[in-house]
């Protein structure tokens, strides 16, 4: 509520003193990240007792967060600079000081807006999509918790705090993918996603260690790390290693080749989750990390960025091909996400000039990909199936879903003047200047993107309905977010349009503000690429055929159906050998070493017990009995002194007196 007050105040004072008013908002940017955590806790503890099963907490928190994010962004729109207050000391180990703090620059502000807006849309949408779900409240708890974690990553001014948010996101992703864990497939997908991203987290952590080492074990603060690396005295090898290790983390989280396998399987989760986590925000965290730590990549050996570009190219092309053959509508979008994330990574691989383009694509992609996923969710909600073979002809039954989905698809395909056109154009321009072969890869991917989205739209919404259900338009809580996101997908691109000043480049840039320049022929080629993709796709899929036209290439079809056999290779080449051999070894170790140790310990204990028992019985009891026996024997002998004769006692008495007297006299 404070946020709204601040925002209203800033709006009222906008004419006179904008910067001063929004300074207030930017100081409290950390509240944006805190709000979802509070709502998660509230939902967890009071959700079931609240009317509406607790969804209201998350929606309120995200609404307030979204308004605050806009206020923070306004600070940069009106020309403000980065805000980096000193953090609060968390703890320190020797010279290493760890802190909790915020770093807010244009990139942070844009990410805040993206995350809160998409998350708000998903929170509202889930009211309809998850209606009547057995774990409805729990779903909202994890959704809010996830959003808070992502905002923590965005706002963190140091790597450790970033890592904390990063890992909470991983856990939330796991929980949400496995939300319907009753089906084994879903829980397997959750485990796969968690473990695969963890493989990336290990190099990420070592990257953090390398960077801490580069600062001389003093800090994890990102700005200070940047200074330390830019300054003299840091070995280039260390920086290069750190860059590669950090990129390893990004590869895991952003699902780049070769750790991309988890993302398509993650579609087992509820569709709003796919929209929020596996399209718009969490997978963008890897890209965000690379952008945030770009100082490291700039100062590393140039071959690091070459590796980044190669991986981006492989992922972009490979995933786009895979999207051709999917029947599951969510998997089409999942592979599209992989491909588009690779687009962003490709932008970053162009060096400092590509940062703005990469993040601009992240920004626009978040809106239209969230839109597409939510639209797919709306369709799935209506036909109770993920398979496009059981859809078709839905454009009349679901007009809102159809039109918004169409806008999203066109934006993704890069149709002028939607959001995707502008960001893709900027990436292509950058690639033409910096890296020619990457330009052609990106252009090819643009054609393919247009093709598979055409296929997807035609199979879903055109032709005749092929399923068994009775499709109907989704409720307003679901179509509302669709319309909102569709609006964003239309207008978001204009923020980076060179003709309109490309203000995005003033907010998000590396080192110096990015000046977008419009190259007419690149825009034309990009548009032609989209048109070619659509024109190839339209005749092929205008009428659905029993055999997919692509089956004309059986070998390629087979290869793509098996996802290049990469998953099979991972299972047969890595997972099974580890599972079988390692588990056998572990079993053997358990049986022989651990059980042996346990049995040995038991044997030793038993032996020691026997020995102690012997000591107890023989020595201790013997001593006690000996005392008793000795006393008894002494008494037996001494009893004869007791004659009962008083005179005998008297004799002894006097003898004693005499003896004592003699003794005393002798001593004296």
């Amino acid at each position, binding site marked *: 509520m404070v946020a709204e007050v601040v925002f209203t105040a800033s709006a009222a004072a906008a004419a006179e003193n904008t910067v001063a008013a929004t300074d207030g908002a930017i100081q409290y940017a950390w509240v944006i990240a805190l709000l979802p955590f509070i709502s998660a806790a509230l939902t967890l503890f009071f959700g079931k007792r609240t009317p509406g099963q607790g969804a209201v907490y998350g929606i309120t928190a995200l609404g307030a967060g979204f308004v605050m994010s806009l206020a923070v962004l306004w600070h940069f729109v009106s020309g403000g600079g980065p805000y980096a207050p000193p953090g609060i000391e968390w703890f320190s180990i020797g010279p290493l000081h760890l802190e909790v703090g915020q770093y807010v620059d244009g990139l942070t502000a844009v990410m805040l807006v993206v995350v809160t807006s998409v998350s708000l849309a998903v929170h509202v949408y889930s009211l309809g999509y998850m209606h009547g779900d057995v774990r409805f409240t729990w779903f909202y708890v994890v959704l809010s918790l996830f959003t808070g974690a992502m905002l923590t990553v965005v706002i963190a001014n140091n790597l450790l705090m970033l890592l904390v948010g990063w890992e909470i996101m991983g856990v939330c992703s796991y929980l949400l993918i496995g939300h319907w864990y009753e089906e084994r497939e879903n829980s397997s997908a959750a485990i796969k996603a968690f473990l695969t991203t963890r493989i990336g987290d290990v190099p990420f952590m070592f990257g953090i260690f390398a960077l801490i080492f580069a600062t001389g074990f003093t800090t994890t603060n990102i700005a200070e790390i940047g200074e330390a690396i830019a300054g003299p005295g840091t070995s280039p090898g260390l920086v290069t290693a750190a860059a590669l290790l950090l990129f390893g983390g990004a590869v895991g989280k952003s699902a780049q080749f070769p750790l991309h396998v988890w993302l398509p399987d993650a579609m087992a989760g509820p569709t709003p989750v796919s929209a929020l986590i596996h399209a718009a925000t969490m997978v963008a965290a890897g890209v965000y990390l690379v952008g945030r730590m770009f100082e490291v990549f700039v100062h590393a050996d140039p071959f690091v960025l070459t590796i980044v570009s190669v991986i981006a190219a492989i992922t972009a092309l490979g995933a786009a091909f895979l999207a051709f053959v999917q029947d599951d509508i969510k998997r089409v979008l999942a592979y599209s996400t992989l491909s588009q994330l690779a687009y962003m990574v490709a932008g970053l691989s162009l060096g400092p000039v590509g940062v703005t383009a990469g993040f601009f694509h992240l920004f626009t992609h978040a809106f239209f990909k969230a839109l597409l996923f939510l639209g797919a969710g709306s369709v799935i909600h209506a036909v109770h199936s993920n398979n496009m073979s059981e859809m078709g002809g839905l454009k009349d039954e679901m007009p809102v879903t159809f039109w918004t989905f169409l806008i999203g698809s066109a934006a993704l395909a890069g149709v002028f003047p939607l959001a995707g056109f502008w960001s893709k154009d900027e990436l292509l321009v950058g690639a033409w200047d910096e890296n020619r072969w990457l330009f052609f890869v990106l252009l090819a991917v643009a054609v393919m993107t247009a093709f598979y989205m055409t296929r997807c739209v035609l199979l879903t919404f055109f032709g005749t309905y092929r399923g068994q259900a009775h499709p109907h338009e989704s409720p307003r809580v679901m179509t509302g977010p669709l319309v909102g996101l569709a609006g964003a997908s239309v207008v978001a691109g204009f923020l980076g349009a060179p003709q309109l000043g490309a203000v995005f480049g003033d907010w998000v840039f590396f080192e110096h503000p990015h000046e977008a320049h419009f190259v007419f022929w690149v825009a034309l080629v990009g548009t032609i690429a989209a048109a070619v993709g659509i024109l190839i796709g339209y005749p092929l899929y205008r009428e659905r055929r029993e055999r997919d036209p692509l089956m004309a290439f059986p070998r390629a079809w087979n290869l793509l159906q098996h996802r290049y056999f990469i998953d099979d290779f991972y299972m047969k080449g890595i997972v099974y050998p580890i599972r079988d051999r390692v588990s056998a070894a572990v079993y053997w170790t358990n049986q022989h070493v651990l059980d042996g140790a346990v049995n040995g310990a038991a044997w030793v204990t038993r032996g020691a017990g026997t020995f102690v028992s012997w000591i107890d019985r023989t020595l201790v009891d013997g001593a006690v009995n000996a005392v008793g026996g000795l006393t008894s024997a002494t008494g037996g002998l001494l009893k004869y002194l007791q*004659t009962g*004769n*008083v005179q005998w006692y*008297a*004799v002894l008495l006097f003898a004693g007196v005499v003896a004592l007297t003699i003794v005393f006299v002798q001593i004296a």
Partner: protein
Amino acid sequence: MIRLPFVLVFSTLLFSTGVYGVLARRNAVMVLMAIELMLNAVNVNLIAFSSALHDVGGQIFALFVIAVAAAEVGIGLAIVILLFRNRASINVDEVNLLKW
């Protein structure tokens, strides 16, 4: 004035006679009498030292001893009478009730 050593020799003899009587006589009455001899030997000593050292405390102590001796004889004779009633004998050799 009788010199102290003479008196001490006399009291020693008297005490020894008493000890002998206590240890050697069988008649309980004789034993009691021998005890009296020992007590009186002590009294002689007390008075002798009192006189020699010019300290009247010894004489007062002797008076106490005489009083206690009277009481002791009373009890002793009572025991002897009861012993005689129970055992028809006052021979101390035959009385071993203090045995274990």
